[in-house]
């Protein structure tokens, strides 16, 4: 059971930093709180008393979203459900709706935030691989000497391992900026123990951009989580496929490539097998969503992995 003496809901970054300074080392930041409350239960952290909880989800800046031609900026408190409800956002981040629909359930998605998912840094986090495929950068802010200073960092460098990030004491994740990729086909593959409310054993985000004829790959991005301590971009596969034709043979060759990356603590054999099928299925689904010509993907391939 989680107990606290005070629950503070700042309306601005200044107020948040003031509360953090006033309660230095006696506070914990909460966003959606969907991880914090289950964590403070028997069998995990047990009964936990945190003197002050500071809730960042009412800070205006953290709720702001802007969608540009090149980049999308998401406030850190953006609820995951927005990726399903906001068609404008979905168009620029084509794998995110598929990711979101596998994320917990409708109710938790309305509360859980993108920033929380990143900072929590679970090796199985669903949103992080999607964002990494979009070349995401995190924006971090802190207040010192009465001034708010900011820095930026690539998301894949920010997450350093299970539940570990480069976030410093007194610093807040305020936003995420990533590539806008309208016109790409997106897919999200996930395997877990059931359909809703399930933590990924393995998940894979795939984005594919094709030429106007739907036969050549102009850009391809794959990012995978659950197979090691942190999410990974599959650069070798991307380089192999980029500026090449869409074909079943090449997708099959690509699927054989990432096997050496599997480095999770448990069930390596199983994950290795899953990854092969996932890469193939991710590529097919993303290519199809990008408008690949049907004859480029043989029926056999589709039947086996679609």
């Amino acid at each position, binding site marked *: 059971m989680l*107990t606290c003496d*005070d*629950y503070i809901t700042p309306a601005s970054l200044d107020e948040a930093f003031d509360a953090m300074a006033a309660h230095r080392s006696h506070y914990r930041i909460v966003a959606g709180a969907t991880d914090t409350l289950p964590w403070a*239960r*028997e*069998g995990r952290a047990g009964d936990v008393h945190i003197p002050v909880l500071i*809730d960042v989800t009412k800070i205006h800046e953290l709720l702001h979203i802007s969608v540009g031609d090149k980049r999308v900026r998401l406030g850190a408190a953006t609820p995951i459900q927005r990726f399903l409800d906001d068609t404008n956002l979905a168009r620029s981040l084509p794998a995110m709706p598929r990711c979101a629909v596998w994320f917990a359930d409708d109710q938790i998605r309305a509360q859980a935030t993108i920033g929380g998912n990143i900072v929590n840094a679970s090796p199985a986090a669903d949103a992080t691989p999607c964002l990494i495929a979009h070349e995401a950068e995190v924006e971090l802010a802190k207040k010192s000497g009465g001034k708010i200073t900011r820095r930026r960092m690539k998301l894949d460098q920010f997450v350093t391992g299970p539940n570990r990030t480069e976030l410093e004491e007194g610093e807040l994740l305020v936003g995420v900026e990533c590539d806008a990729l309208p016109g790409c086909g997106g897919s999200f593959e996930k395997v877990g123990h059931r*359909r809703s409310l399930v933590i990924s054993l393995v998940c894979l985000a795939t984005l594919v951009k094709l030429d106007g004829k739907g036969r050549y790959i102009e850009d391809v991005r794959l990012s995978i989580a659950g197979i090691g301590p942190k999410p990974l971009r599959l650069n070798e596969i991307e380089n192999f496929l980029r500026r090449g034709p869409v074909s079943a043979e090449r997708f099959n060759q690509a699927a054989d490539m990432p096997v050496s990356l599997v480095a999770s603590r448990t069930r390596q054999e199983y994950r290795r097998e899953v990854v092969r099928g996932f890469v193939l299925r991710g590529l097919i689904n993303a290519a199809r969503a990008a408008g690949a010509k049907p004859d480029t993907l043989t029926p056999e391939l589709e039947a086996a992995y679609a």
Partner: protein
Amino acid sequence: MPDLQFQATINGRKISRSAKPHQRLLDFIRDDLNLTGNKEGCGAGECGTCSVFVDGTLMKSCLLPVAKAQGTTIETVEALAKTGELSVLQKAFHKTGASQCGYCIPGMVMAATAALRTNPFADREEIKERLGGNICRCTGYQKIFDAVELARDVQNGTLPASALMEDEAESGDFIGKNVRRIDTPSKVSGRLKYAADMTMPGMLHVQVLRSPYAHARIVSIDTSAAEAIEGVAGIITSADVPGEDGFGVFVNDQPVMAQDKVRYVGEAVAAVAAEDLLIAKRALSSINVIYAPLPSVFDPEEALCPGAPVLHDYAPDNVTKHIPIRVGDTEKGFAESDLVIEETYSTQPIEHAYLEPEAGLTYVDHDGVVTIVSPDQNITHHRHMLARIIAKPISKVRFIMSPVGGGFGGKEDMIYQGMLALLAMKTQRPVRLVFTREDSIISTAKRHPSRTVLRMGLMRDGRIRALRMKMICDGGAYGLSTEGVMRKAAILAAGPYVIPNVRVDTFGIYTNNTPSGAFRSFGALQTAFATESHLDICAERLGLDPFQIRRINAMRDGALTHTKAKLGSVSLMRALDALEKASGWETGAPTSRGEIRGDLDRPDIRPPCALGARFAAAEKREAAE
């Protein structure tokens, strides 16, 4: 630190009240506003019994700090039938029989309401997806989905409102008709009070101290520091039992709280009643128990070995119960057989996971009657046992069965009612204990894990000549229903088949694992799993169709079972015919099929789960526009 001044509009009414900063919205709604329609099933966002609307968005109120709902408009399940008239969805749940134990139903009705508000035309796949955050253990979901589809069609005018009414009897015959359950309106509206929904003036809150050891001697228990805490009203240990301690179903081997030693992790050692939950929790952490760990045993076969740790003095061999059945001469039967196959089968422990965690409210009434209100599946037996434990005449003990929010056998054991009685007697105040999901999983019985060696001898034509089965079950630390489970497992071990030579031995064994107990089928699952799996293997070896091998051996009307029960009529052949037809079974031995089975992918066979039904619906809408 100050309390929050919490302001919101709840079910159409403005409220402004102080709230504790750590409270969850669920606590505030249930405890402070006494709106108990929405339940707590897990406290971790998994089950959805607590789902409420916050500014029109469905959320899990167990995951929501109350401060997050500051200034919002909240609808609980009570809002849906505010005037007493059920909503269309609630009526549809009533019509289709979507509510059984009812504990998940308030949350389920809310999720269904949210699904149809979001997409009034959602198809069944999309409904499934949108209800994905809510768990039901009784219905298997199909009737719930039926209800949502019915409500959708009535709301959209494609079905008349009369479709929500009960089916009429045809010349007095209700068979095959949807007869509405009379308890459903109270469940779909959230009006029904389960034990955790009940309160009494002056009620104390109970918490239980549990053993962290699987097997340990209790050297001492010091409750003095806990007793001294302001707000603590009473603490009990085994020493407070005035009568003859010990409960069970077949053997009374389990004390109300651990006596001289603990036998499994999670066993109750002491209990506290206090003015509120936090004080009770604080008191628990102030009780000082000194344990001397003992060697433990976690595998039933190891528990049978000489020199294994002994759990109960009365059973030095750790055998809770052995049930033998002997018919004919199995050795002779195997010798006569054309084919003898032996295999080993195992099943795992299973938690019942009823949506309602255990809860009980207990008080001593004006006549001195100790009254226990709890979702208890065996109140008469428990009443007799408790009278002996608390040394009172039977007329001074009363059990009231509150609505059982799912039991499946898991609420047949008196594992907490004894503590409540002792605390109510000690404090002379009403006391209430509400289990968390974790309490429920750690301390209550599981389905018996089993290991079965099965040897079967058959003739080439498929007739079974002999069956020998030895099943060893892990009964855990206490007897509970083990004897009965072993008995039924043995009785049904050879299945509904004519077998001239049968030798069955089922063993329930004590170990330091969580006790095993009653669970749907009560032992039949474990032996049937072995026997039926074995028949499939035998069919394959003999080149027979699995249905055929069962028909060849099926008991017919007038058969004598292996335990000498005469069966007037046996419906097995009809059941096999119906099953074969309904499953679209592709006739033939298991070896006769090619790579692809012809009986799959039919329209009436459910495909594996997938997500994304809402995308398909959206694409269809866009195409239509």
